[in-house]
């Protein structure tokens, strides 16, 4: 469902919504975060992507003011979360992992009391719409499905009309339909103008939702940027492919020089860092050998999945 409410007028100060510099965290002698730096800008969806145990939740808990860091500086909406947690709570919505509800409360009743905790709450009807729970508004929370409970999480996090929303692994363990509806709810959240920072170990989730991605691995940020930038900076080549022409398959035509073209049965494939030059050479070669326009010619940008697997090792790469 598309929500068409006017986004709230939000101040967009010069400073980032979240600023993390040289963040360090140790539990005893175990170093969980080893100098993490990133910014989250107002109005964007920022995703902290990484395998389990990379330090995503720890980073989020520090930003939420639940843990003081061992070292480094952190500013959230210009505030120091460890020292100014109370002021932060009024302007930040949080969806934590494994947070339950009072079992006997009803959906609308619970959202409504949550609204009373905040100085400038969003209207109840709007919250129910955003998370698509209007039809179960009078249902007791214990009777909701997992996906509905997660969307209720969103509604509670949004009740105070926050400037910033933290989502910790919002769709872990959900079936595809529940994930799809969660994503729709998150896209509705962003349409309301909130800045969103989420963690996930699902690539498709990061690719689908995020404007920018930071890959966190073993307590360090490996890469930050847009999906495209992350993929490019991981040093991955663009892939060019086309249907292998009959003449080439029969060996009547020699392979072109210098572009590393490989014939894999029906498909011919090469990888390149310079798409224009490679394409020109390929098409010239096709012209010379009267192969026509190269049937099924496709240029594929490197995907986030490729870069993620390259960076973290295929074994770490989670996914549904």
């Amino acid at each position, binding site marked *: 469902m598309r929500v068409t409410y006017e986004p709230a007028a939000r101040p967009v100060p010069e400073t980032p919504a979240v600023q993390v510099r040289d963040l360090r965290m140790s539990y005893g002698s175990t170093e969980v975060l080893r100098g993490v730096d990133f910014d989250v800008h107002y109005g964007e969806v920022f995703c902290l992507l990484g395998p389990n145990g990379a330090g995503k939740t720890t980073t989020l808990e520090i930003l939420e003011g639940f843990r003081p860091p061992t070292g480094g500086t952190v500013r959230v909406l210009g505030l120091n979360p460890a020292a100014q947690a109370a002021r932060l709570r009024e302007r930040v919505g949080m969806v934590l992992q494994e947070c339950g509800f009072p079992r006997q409360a009803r959906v609308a009743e619970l959202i409504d009391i949550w609204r*009373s905790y905040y100085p400038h709450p969003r209207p109840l009807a709007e919250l129910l719409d955003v998370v698509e729970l209007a039809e179960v508004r009078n249902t007791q929370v214990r009777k909701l499905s997992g996906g509905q409970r997660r969307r209720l999480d969103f509604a509670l996090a949004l009740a*105070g009309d926050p400037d910033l929303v933290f989502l910790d692994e919002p769709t872990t363990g959900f079936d595809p339909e529940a994930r799809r509806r969660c994503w729709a709810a998150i896209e509705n959240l962003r349409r309301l103008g909130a800045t969103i920072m989420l963690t996930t170990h699902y690539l498709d989730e990061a690719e689908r939702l995020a404007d920018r991605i930071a890959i966190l691995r073993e307590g360090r940020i490996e890469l930050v940027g847009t999906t495209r930038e992350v993929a490019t900076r991981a040093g991955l080549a663009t892939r060019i492919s086309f249907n292998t022409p009959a003449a080439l398959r029969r060996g009547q035509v020699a392979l072109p020089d210098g572009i590393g073209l490989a014939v894999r049965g029906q498909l011919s494939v090469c990888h390149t860092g310079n798409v224009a030059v490679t394409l020109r050479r390929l098409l010239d070669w096709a012209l010379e050998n009267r192969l026509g326009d190269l049937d099924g010619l496709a240029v594929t940008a490197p995907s986030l999945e490729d870069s993620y697997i390259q960076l973290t090792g295929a074994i770490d790469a989670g996914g549904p």
Partner: protein
Amino acid sequence: MTRAVRLAARQALLEQRSFWRSAEYALFTFVFPLMILLLIGAANVGSYLPGSHVKNTTVFVPGILAFGVIVAAYVNLGSKVAVLRHDGVLKRIKTTPLPSAAYLGGLLASTVLTAILISACTGVIGWLAFGASPRPDGLLALAAGLVLGIVCFATLGLAISAVITTAESAGPLAYASFLPIAIISGVFDPTFGGLPHWMERMVDAFPVKALAQVLQGGYTVRPFPALDLANLGLWTVAGAFFVAWRFRWHT
């Protein structure tokens, strides 16, 4: 300050609505004590305490009053808070700007309301069924005893919640930690006695018998229960210290 009070009142109303929606809480808190009142009360009709003109039911009804207060304040609040902590509801509250005092105040206010309701039911049924009624000049002592009893056992309820780690064990543990003491304190049997000396001392040390005796003072003439009041006061203070030391918002 007024905002915190308003928020606490709202929280208390939501808790009350939730309480009455939940068969297990409402049933255990109300049906269990009232059933005991009627069954054991009926068995004591026409009997007198040995060597006196005091009817058994006159001390049995305030004993069940004490039992009701303990179930409502200690068992209910203790297991409820343990479940809220186990389910992560307390942690979720910490993500909001709601002051902790307003939230706990709401839980406590709802507990007080439940305890007053069960006391009223016990008192009225005890009067209608067995003719046991407080002495007119014992009413003040009775009211004071109820207030102190609710405060004491609600504090101990918060304390026991801090040592319960799973939702499944919350109710059973809360009951198991006081029912044996209630039995050897003679709450269910006015003529109960003959305990070994050391066990008598132990019963005197716990707050169950103390509350029962303070409330019995509202029904029959008894010496001023200075020791019993001191007992309840000490347990309240000890419970409060334990809560301050061990209470956590998440597991």
